[in-house]
């Protein structure tokens, strides 16, 4: 499982880091981001790369989101 910590990074760096990780074709990836907008951006990009969002958990105390991505079975 690859984990990307993109918390607090400006657009479009969380998306770029996720894209780079997905290019290695992993089955599952976890991405940490701080803002809702980054959740939307990472989700949009992942879908275009044939990955699905399995879950988005919000850590309210620390103020970040944990996105679980998984490769779609063909």
């Amino acid at each position, binding site marked *: 499982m690859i984990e990307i910590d993109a918390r*607090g990074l*400006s*657009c479009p760096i969380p*998306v770029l880091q996720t894209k*780079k990780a997905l290019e290695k074709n992993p089955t599952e990836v976890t991405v940490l981001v*701080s803002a809702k907008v980054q959740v939307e951006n990472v989700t949009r*990009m992942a879908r*275009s790369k044939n990955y699905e969002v399995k879950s988005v958990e919000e850590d309210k105390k620390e103020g970040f989101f944990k996105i679980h991505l998984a490769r779609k079975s063909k």
Partner: protein
Amino acid sequence: MRKESIVVILSGGIVGLLSVLLTVKIFGDNTNPPNMGFCIACFERDTAGALGLHRAEPVQYIRPEILGIIIGALIASLLLREFRSEGGSSPVLRFLLGMFVMFGALVFLGCPLRMVLRIAGGDLNGLIALCGFIAGVLVGVLLLKAGFNLGRAYPLKTINGWILPAIIIVLLILAITVPVFNPKASALPDGRTNSPIFSSIKGPGSQHAPLLFSLIAGIVVGVLAQRSRLCFAGGVRDTILIRDIHLLSGFIAVFAVAFFGNLIAGKVKFGFEGQPIAHTEHLWNFVGMALVGLGSVLLGGCPLRQLVLAGRGNTDSSLAVLGMVAGAAFAHNLNFASSPQGTTDWGRAIAITGIVVCVLIGLLNREKS
């Protein structure tokens, strides 16, 4: 179509519509200047002038649109529970980048939003500027691919995110009351005094829609831009970088609605010459907007997006906004800013300097992967 796409296209369309409405006589005879329903750079510059940070008399007015955008973004982010005080991602560099973005915008005479509005009014100089903007974004994209990163922003105590919105509320009170702080500051030839808070008597700064209309239009744009993440630099950047036209579709919606709105209002006049608040120096329209495109990509968003992020608690974006305000003051005090007569020697020099500085900032902030 996904809901997200509908939101961004609808938001772009409403921004385009309001931009036209602010330049037509619906609530009285005074309106915003032509092709300038909104211009983030020009309006921050006018606001800097109103406070006397520069003394270019034709461009001094607290623009309620700017205040409204931040208030709107603040309201939307509170309602959507997205308000978040954060900062610490290279704040001084962001201030500097904001300054240079303003220098570029004032060489061209408009921010990316006004560039779109100028094209929608038939101003073909805007098309040259668009080519420059795309070129600048492209350089920014190359730097991003090389690992450019200004570092993480960290959560801050809530009060930090409220500082800029609080300043905006103070400015709103000043805009409504227009107090005279220093009657001796400037006596006009006709015996009247033009004192801080300044408000232009002639020139673009004197052309403005009624305060309440401007303020409400700004709030609407702020709410929509926070909700839809509308960003002009992001639109071009994502199209090139990740083949994603999501944000670009908002950009196109602004253009389409503004163009048809201008057609209906009889305001479309195609050509390079004689366009309102514009000059025809193609090379410098290109270079000025290239600087805006490059600087905006390094900041992570265009001037509109910086305002919106500042409204939702991002203090790094507050610094970029303050950098733009300082940049506007420098640009007029030091004669960097263009006028309809054309660019200045200093303006051309600072535009080139700005591109060099931005590329250096880009190269010196690469992160090894």
